[in-house]
């Protein structure tokens, strides 16, 4: 029996290996050295969650670069990545070029320790060919242009979403991105059909709990009776911004005009939950003597943006409330050799990702990843160790909720 490495062939016959090993080098050494076999196994083990964090970026890169249908040029050799330097240079200076990769001891790498003369290419290395710089510069300019374009587009989109654009631009954004939830330039007052009681439009169908300090109204009261002196401003302050799922958060409105706080004006709390495209009425309140009012959104079970609408179309900036669904970990059985850990998060959604972590020294290391089943639970199996180990479960954040960390559970020693 030998191990079946890809490309693990008998070409490892050690003809010129001192002391010659019979047969398949990797397989034989790994078989005769149990610890080495385990070590090589780890090197080739399946991905750990943190090794796959760039998945979305990779996919975006593929989308941006893939050119389906483009006929392949001549069946040339693929570019082996020597675009930054000549192949000859690479071949000739391979060993020298590789020195900076932290293999050599510091004394052989004076440049790495900031010694004089270390700023240029390494001694013995050739200077860059003349054709290199324009190409690299062009690439950098291209990358920079792409980055600026992306940043501008992102800024435009954010401004459009928050209705911070001038009316014509907002209208243009609405036409272009309306399907993704960008509002039109006018701010439609919540209609009777779309309005709802506070806390009643949360995700996951949670029951309605009336907010204590606000009065929900399908038709926000008109503020026409409250005269505003000059340009009014409406600000919003969120008390927490990060709450446990099912709890409430309180917002403070401050309506001011040229003469100071505006009392007796009606302000509406609007909410846009993750995944929704329209603002919904979440409650109303009347400002007090100093122009402030408190509004509460209760029973929040999904991330949501909130903003205030005041008299004469005044709008506040939006604020975000992140909802944290509790996640718990419990030991579901231990037979001396293995232990089961059950993760449960009733307010998360089936399919959400949970990651099992182990405390190693002072650091938590990710071990396994699973998805919540229909009962919002996931099972992990761990090996019992010679000494007691501490585990916990992390619920990965989604658009609907934030990251959540469970209690720690101890798996007894074997």
């Amino acid at each position, binding site marked *: 029996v030998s191990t079946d490495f890809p490309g693990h062939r008998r070409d490892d016959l050690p003809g010129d290996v001192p002391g010659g090993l019979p047969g398949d080098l990797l397989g034989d050494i790994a078989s005769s050295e149990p610890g080495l076999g385990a070590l090589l196994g780890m090197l080739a083990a399946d991905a750990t969650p943190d090794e*796959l964090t760039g998945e979305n970026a990779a996919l975006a890169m593929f989308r941006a670069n893939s050119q389906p249908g483009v006929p392949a040029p001549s069946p040339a050799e693929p570019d082996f990545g020597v675009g930054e330097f000549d192949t000859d240079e*690479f071949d000739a200076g391979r060993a020298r070029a590789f020195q*900076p990769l932290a293999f050599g001891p510091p004394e052989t790498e004076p440049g790495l320790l900031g010694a004089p003369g270390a700023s240029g290419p390494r001694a013995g290395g050739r200077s860059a060919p003349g054709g290199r710089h324009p190409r690299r510069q062009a690439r950098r300019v291209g990358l920079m242009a792409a980055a600026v374009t992306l940043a501008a587009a992102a800024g435009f989109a954010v401004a459009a979403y928050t209705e911070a654009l001038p009316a014509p631009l907002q209208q243009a954004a609405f036409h272009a991105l309306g399907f993704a939830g960008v509002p039109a330039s006018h701010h439609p007052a919540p209609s009777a059909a779309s309005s709802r009681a506070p806390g009643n439009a949360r995700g996951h169908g949670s029951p309605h709990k009336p907010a204590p300090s606000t009065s929900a109204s399908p038709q926000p009261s008109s503020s026409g009776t409250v005269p505003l002196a000059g340009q009014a401003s409406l600000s919003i302050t969120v008390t927490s911004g990060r709450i446990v799922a099912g709890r409430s958060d309180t917002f403070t409105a401050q309506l001011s005009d040229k003469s100071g706080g505006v009392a007796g004006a009606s302000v509406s709390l609007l909410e846009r939950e993750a995944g929704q495209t329209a603002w919904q009425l979440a409650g109303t309140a009347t400002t007090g003597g100093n122009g402030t009012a408190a509004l509460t959104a209760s029973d929040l079970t999904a991330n949501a943006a909130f903003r205030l609408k005041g008299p004469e179309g005044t709008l506040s900036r939006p604020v975000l409330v992140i909802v944290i669904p509790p996640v718990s970990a419990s030991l579901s059985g231990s037979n001396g050799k293995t232990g089961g850990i059950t993760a449960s998060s009733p307010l998360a959604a089936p399919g959400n990702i949970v990651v099992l972590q182990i405390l190693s020294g002072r650091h938590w290391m990710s071990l396994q990843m699973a998805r919540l089943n229909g009962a919002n639970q996931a099972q992990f199996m761990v090996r019992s160790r010679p000494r007691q180990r501490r585990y916990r479960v992390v619920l990965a954040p989604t658009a609907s909720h934030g990251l959540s960390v469970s209690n720690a559970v101890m798996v007894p020693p074997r």
Partner: protein
Amino acid sequence: MATKAGDLGGLLARARSGDEAGFLELWRALQPRLLRYLHVLGCDDPDDVAGETWLQVVRDLHRFAGDDEDFRRWLFTVARHRAIDAARARVRRRVSPMADRLDGLADEQLVEDEVLDGMSVKTAVAMLAGLSQDQAEAVALRVIAGLDTPAVASILGKSPGAVRVALHRGLRALAADPRVQALAADHGSGLPGQAPGLLAPWGGGLSEH
């Protein structure tokens, strides 16, 4: 879930035809190995270099002609070149790696725990990176990248015989490491046959020859 070598060829074909799901599976199968290889090379920012590598691979994928082994050889060759570029850029910027090294020293306090846990890929990669340059690269390209000896020799610009020597010495050095011997104790008898998944980089398990 490990990806078998045959599957990799299928994923490669799908990716070449523009299939996003195929590319994603291909990326998931190879990205972890790429990152581990770059860690062994001592890259300051393996994620960044891996991103550069995939960027070039994606850009030139339509020009690629070959099977899954050729693709792996190409991928890791590009990665090595990008790592060299990154190292050169670091020298040009006069960046001192001392801070990183101090961080590494701090992390070494965790090594014992991690090895005793017997499940840390990070620790295994760090141990491999502790070998000499020739040995570390030979073992990494052979075990992590799953390339055969001629391919490794081609990438390193050495003769196959020299690669075999480096591979042999590297494996022996690893086997003599007390931490590896502690692993053997933790794994009981630790014979590969008891944990076939561990020695099957592409899920091939053990096979009779």
